[in-house]
């Protein structure tokens, strides 16, 4: 399983705008590059990223071959309740990765 790194505040005030940073290891092979024998290297990229906050989708992104290796996505949300942030990455060749972090809202 790919290694992912989440940076989100563990604690926030109710109504506070918080930044969530996500980084995942992935080669993001474009499918356009030839290998040393001239044959194209098959595409292998992450195609989708979804973040859910207590089960509710708050952010979704589609990824394409022009996105660099080890995609780093950051976005903002409003901290409105204590709970869990779930992250999911879906890609070519059946790639999936999940991660979750807890947040306490005071």
């Amino acid at each position, binding site marked *: 399983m790919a*290694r992912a*790194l989440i940076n989100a505040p563990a604690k926030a005030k109710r109504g506070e705008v918080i930044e969530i*940073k996500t*980084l995942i*290891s992935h080669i*993001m092979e474009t499918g356009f590059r030839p290998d040393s024998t001239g044959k194209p290297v098959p595409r292998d990229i992450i195609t989708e990223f979804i973040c859910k906050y207590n089960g509710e989708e708050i952010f979704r992104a589609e990824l394409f071959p022009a996105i660099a*290796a*080890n995609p780093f996505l950051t976005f903002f949300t409003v901290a409105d309740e204590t709970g869990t942030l779930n992250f999911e990455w879906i890609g070519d060749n059946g790639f999936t990765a999940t991660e979750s972090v807890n947040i306490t809202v005071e």
Partner: protein
Amino acid sequence: MTRPAAVLFVIAVLGAAAAAADIPLAERKSGYEFMARETRAMQDDDSANPATLWVLDAETLWQRKEGSAGKSCADCHGDARTNMRGVAARYPAFNEARGRPIDLEQRVNICRTEQQRATPLAFESKELLALTAYVGQQSRGMPIDIANDAHIRPFLEAGRVMFTERQGQLNLSCAQCHDDNWGQKLAGAAIPQGHPTGYPLYRLEWQTLGSLQRRLRNCLFGMRAVSYPYGASELVDLELYLMWRARGMPVETPAVRP
């Protein structure tokens, strides 16, 4: 001035520029200072620095038993966070058994073959980059401290010659860019002073972590010079000279560069 005299004068000026002295110690700048704000931000925040992914892998590798001896790095070295502090700042270092300096990659592989009795890791393999980045990170912020003693001096001198002598089809020396023309642009990119303060580092162009030898081989290729194979003594001598040239500058490993 007659025309031949003017030509001679221009040649004399160019000759003087080519022979410019070393950068004064106080005027040295890390490649970090030539980077865009966004790239600096990536290096400053470990959770945004992709090299952290390798460092996290190495925390696991450090504990993993390897080879026929069934030993892990931790079995000898204990906790890297305390026991590896300052180590990378001293490499390349003189190795008595080999009678010459070795770099951190070679040190890891000597441990693998002699202590763990495992096969050496390939240069630029994920594992070797991870382990060197992990060991390097323990020296972050510490000054580069290369011993300049009688053992090291001949190799340091060989590295200096490699840095200052013209080579390749473009007939360029490393010093012409990195001593004489740093701060200028080469095809739109800033020419840094060439201090290897953050290796192995994540280069956005490579989209991966890479060693100093990879960077040096890239430069040599660009100069259309002989690109020595990984682990060649010429490259280690050059690494040694560059680290000595950056003595006292803080280690940034694992850095980010454009």
